[in-house]
């Protein structure tokens, strides 16, 4: 066992791990009571960070959730409780479902118990984009890249993780607004990643656009920075190998073909 393994308990507790790290650490958790206890405690501690943020969802969401619930089979308990009788609504083969799977939405009895057909329809509509998003979430992988081995060999890393873990990762930082913006580029991976912990909010109707400075071609668009007053991580579109720098300009919301304003930030790779 890697002696460093326990150290991941904090990051694991707040989901600050990749899927591979999660799988690997959960194998460890099965064997390590200390880490199991620590994870539970640290999760409770992290939860206090948002204890002042309460936001009631719209009332329609309640109807939607409850309509979906009445059509959704629960998993059977891992071990049948000694005293209590087994729940009647459990399907016989429910235990086979993986923990991370989406809730089954099979219509067990046709109509929702409360008869709120509208809510049920809204719910079915609501679930579809989520499924679509799950498909879109397929991890971007780039072959033949050197990364730092992580305990077990990770099978898939996002482009972002590959860049950030690359041996040749080059990190550039600039002040912007009240905080810093960061650009990390790996020649070996051929990609660059933009990160900010508090990106200033652009003026209404405007957005920040990323550019690569490519010799012979000038500024080439590398995509838009999601509008946000919060933390953001976004891989730049395009090949970071030949670029000698990167820049950010303020552009119309949908971006421009070429920069139409002076750069608010310039990173030089050389």
């Amino acid at each position, binding site marked *: 066992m890697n002696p460093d393994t326990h*150290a991941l308990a904090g990051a694991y507790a707040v989901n600050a791990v990749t899927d591979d790290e999660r799988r690997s650490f959960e194998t460890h958790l099965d064997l390590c009571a200390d880490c199991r206890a620590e994870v539970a405690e640290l999760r409770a501690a992290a939860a206090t960070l948002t204890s002042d943020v309460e936001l009631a969802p719209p009332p329609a969401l309640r109807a939607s959730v409850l309509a979906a619930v009445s059509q959704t089979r629960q998993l059977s308990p891992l071990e049948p409780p000694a005293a209590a009788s087994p729940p009647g609504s459990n399907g016989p083969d429910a235990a086979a479902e993986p923990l991370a799977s989406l809730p089954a939405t099979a219509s067990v009895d046709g109509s929702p118990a409360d008869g709120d057909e509208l809510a049920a329809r809204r719910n079915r509509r609501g679930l579809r984009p989520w499924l679509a998003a799950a498909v879109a979430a397929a991890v971007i992988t780039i072959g033949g890249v050197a990364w730092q081995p992580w305990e077990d060999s990770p099978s898939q890393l996002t482009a972002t993780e590959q860049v950030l873990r690359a041996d040749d990762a080059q990190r550039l930082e600039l002040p912007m607004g009240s905080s810093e913006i960061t650009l990390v580029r790996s020649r070996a991976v051929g990609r660059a990643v933009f990160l900010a912990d508090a990106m200033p909010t652009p003026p209404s109707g405007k957005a920040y656009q990323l550019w690569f400075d490519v010799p012979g071609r000038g500024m080439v668009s590398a995509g838009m920075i999601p509008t946000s007053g919060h933390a953001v991580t976004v891989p730049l579109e395009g090949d970071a190998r030949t670029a000698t720098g990167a820049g950010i300009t303020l552009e119309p919301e949908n971006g421009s073909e070429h920069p139409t304003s002076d750069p608010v930030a310039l990173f030089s790779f050389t």
Partner: protein
Amino acid sequence: MVIMAAVGSGDESLPTAAVGPDLGSLLTRSARGDEGAFAELYDATAARLHGLVVRVVRDRAQSEEVTQEAFLDIWTHCTRFDPAKGSPLSWMLTIAHRKAVDRVRSAEASKAREVTYEVTTTEREHDSTLEKVEVRLDQQRVRRALATLTDTQRGAVELAYLGGHTHTEVAALLGIPLGTAKTRIRDGLIRLRDTLEVTA
């Protein structure tokens, strides 16, 4: 002052659990397929879970989808809730947080994150009921606990938990070695736990 003393003697680590229905028994009844109990569970926790989801996901429409997904997940998995692994609210928040982080990362993996809704951390309406006052004072306790973290620990914890970043991303953001970010996240959470005397 009297109220302060009362709060100091309280042992609830999660403020919203300090009042209202017994989430544990609602979860137990939900696990037996009791939809009415689950509706009560929803009413008692929806604002707390949705607040967390919105804080991480930011986009309002997407947050609503994520909150719905979280509650459906809670419904299907409450049969396997293990009180030994944490309080009911902590367990529910963990599911909601995981869903929120997954949504943020899937958005980043496919396309840049769409952000149409800016969340502002809204201070609660302060009224004269004891319940609200208790919650508010508990907030002060949380803020005092946060103040005991070093700036670097707090930064790492917030980037990870609220920003939805992996520890690798946190390292890049802070310009610290890869292994250091996960240590800071852990040390920061441990200090938060110890100061608040949080129990799982």
